[in-house]
């Protein structure tokens, strides 16, 4: 099937756009799962794109842009993995482990280059301030989008243009001699979300909220097992008894999320009550404006 030139063009444009989107308006077009969706649509196989994007999203779940540090670019990785998977018939899970993750890591380097390149424009703006050239200041500021876009678009373009043949031969080799590696990559793809969850836990106050980690896990683990077992049982019964037509759905994650939301609402109320109690009970409250309010009240009473 191969990858068409217009597909390369569209994927390259998207790769350049997604980083700018993430920096500015943040519509979630700069997320791995969206990258999978759009590349899937461009490549003509949305399902494959979504599956790769979804898996990559889980892998980088906790990797945010904290304080402007560079992070792995799961989006460009997803774009390439989807393109090669659909275009060259690579197995999805192998594409994730063999292409998406290494590419994502490699693009940390181009991210760093973009951030360096923008120092150049910042210095030009310093000079233009001295000269009162307002238009040029604004222009040079907007030029900052160019290094950003190129840092993603260029590697994606090169990989799509020149990587196809290489990937093709690797794929055919892996499906014959290296089947152990192929299965290994597939398994690794299934383990990778664990990294995403662990990173996320590093950023969240786990020590403070650990009871809820246990509740969330055990509740879901048990329900998921029951749902799966009952579903399998139902499937077996349907095969035997013709008039048994109950429709078995999977575990609704929204329901689990709502339980969590309930706990969160309780915590929020508790936090606000505590704050209000502190504001009214303590006359020597630490916040200045609280003190002022109370003085005002006392004066009113005296009048």
């Amino acid at each position, binding site marked *: 099937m191969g990858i068409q030139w217009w597909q390369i063009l569209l994927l390259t444009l998207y790769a350049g756009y997604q980083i700018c989107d993430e*920096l*500015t*308006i*943040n519509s*979630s077009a700069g*997320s*791995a*799962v969206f990258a*999978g969706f759009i590349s899937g649509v461009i490549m003509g196989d949305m399902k494959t794109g*979504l*599956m790769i994007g*979804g898996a990559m*999203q*889980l892998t980088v*779940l906790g990797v945010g842009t904290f*304080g*402007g540090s560079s992070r792995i670019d799961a989006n460009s990785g997803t774009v390439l993995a989807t393109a090669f998977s659909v275009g060259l018939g690579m197995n999805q899970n192998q594409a994730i482990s063999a292409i998406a993750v290494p590419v994502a890591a490699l693009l*940390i380097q181009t991210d760093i280059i973009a951030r360096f390149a923008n120092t150049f424009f*910042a210095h030009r*703006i*310093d000079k233009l*301030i001295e000269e*009162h050239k*307002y238009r040029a200041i*604004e222009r040079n500021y*907007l030029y*900052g989008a160019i290094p*950003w876009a190129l840092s993603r678009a260029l590697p994606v373009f090169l990989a799509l243009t020149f990587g196809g043949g290489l990937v093709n031969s690797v794929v055919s080799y892996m499906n014959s001699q290296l089947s*152990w590696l192929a*299965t*290994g990559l597939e398994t*690794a793809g299934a*383990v*990778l*979300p*664990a*990294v995403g*969850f662990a990173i*996320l*836990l*590093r950023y*969240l106050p*786990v020590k403070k*909220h*650990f009871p*809820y980690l*246990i509740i*969330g*896990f*055990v509740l879901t*683990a048990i329900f998921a*097992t029951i749902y799966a077992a009952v579903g399998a049982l139902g499937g077996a019964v349907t095969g035997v008894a013709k008039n048994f037509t109950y429709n078995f759905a999977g575990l609704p*994650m929204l329901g689990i999320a709502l339980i*969590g939301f309930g*706990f969160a609402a309780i915590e*929020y109320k508790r*936090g606000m009550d505590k*704050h209000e109690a502190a504001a009214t009970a303590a006359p020597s409250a630490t916040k*200045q*404006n609280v003190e002022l309010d109370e003085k005002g009240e006392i004066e009113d009473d005296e009048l």
Partner: protein
Amino acid sequence: MTNSNYKLTKQDFKQINRRSLFTFQLGWNYERMQNTSYLYIMLPQIRKIYGDNTDELKQVMKNETQFFNTSNFFNTIITGTDLAIQEKEGIKSLETVSGLKVGLMGSFAAIGDSIFAALIPAIFGAIAANMAVAGNPTGVFLWVAVNIGIMYFRWRQLEFAYKEGVNLVTRMQAKLSALTDAATLLGVFMVGALVATMINIKIGTVIHLGDLNVVLQDKIDMILPKLVPAAIVGLVYWMLGRKNMTATRAIFIVLFVSIALSALGVIAKG
């Protein structure tokens, strides 16, 4: 001294918001991070306040291109407060404004990162990914919808901050910390739930005792289902706490160890 008694209008707020939403952070650089971004989104307004080609304007522009880095979800709160002060006090407020910027950027960065850069992407990313691996794009659109809601919130905060000024920062803190607390609780709960559903790995080892075949995974399921995914996450969590460990390194270690264990038949896709 300000040259004019210029007062910011609705049009000004619109312009700042447009610039903030569509361009803030494009100039991000290693040296002073969001410094040019901060100047760019307020440049037309400080030009109106101080007048073109004045020494005051040059001084202000220099002041506003100093080091700055905060959450791009809260930056206009600082801009709004900044402009409210400069509009009233003019050039003599520069020191106040600098102090305010430095003082606020850290706390807003912390709150913004934990809610908007970690929590919301984690929750809605997980929901979207959950649906996506089943081939369903609905979650992707849901996430976009949520982010459009957040854009509205980003749009509204500027005018709010401009009107409330410094007062806002002290007053909102209690509400924000209660909200952060509740939001992180939900995050921790959801991670627990996700560990139980999204990591499909089982132990592949079968122990042969004469004629008896003991499937190890069956024994583990009798203790608690999904114990293997929980153990893997715990292990990675511990690993991330080690010195010199980065997220990228952890991902590659997990990649290689998984391939090795899979080749040995210890673990398998469940």
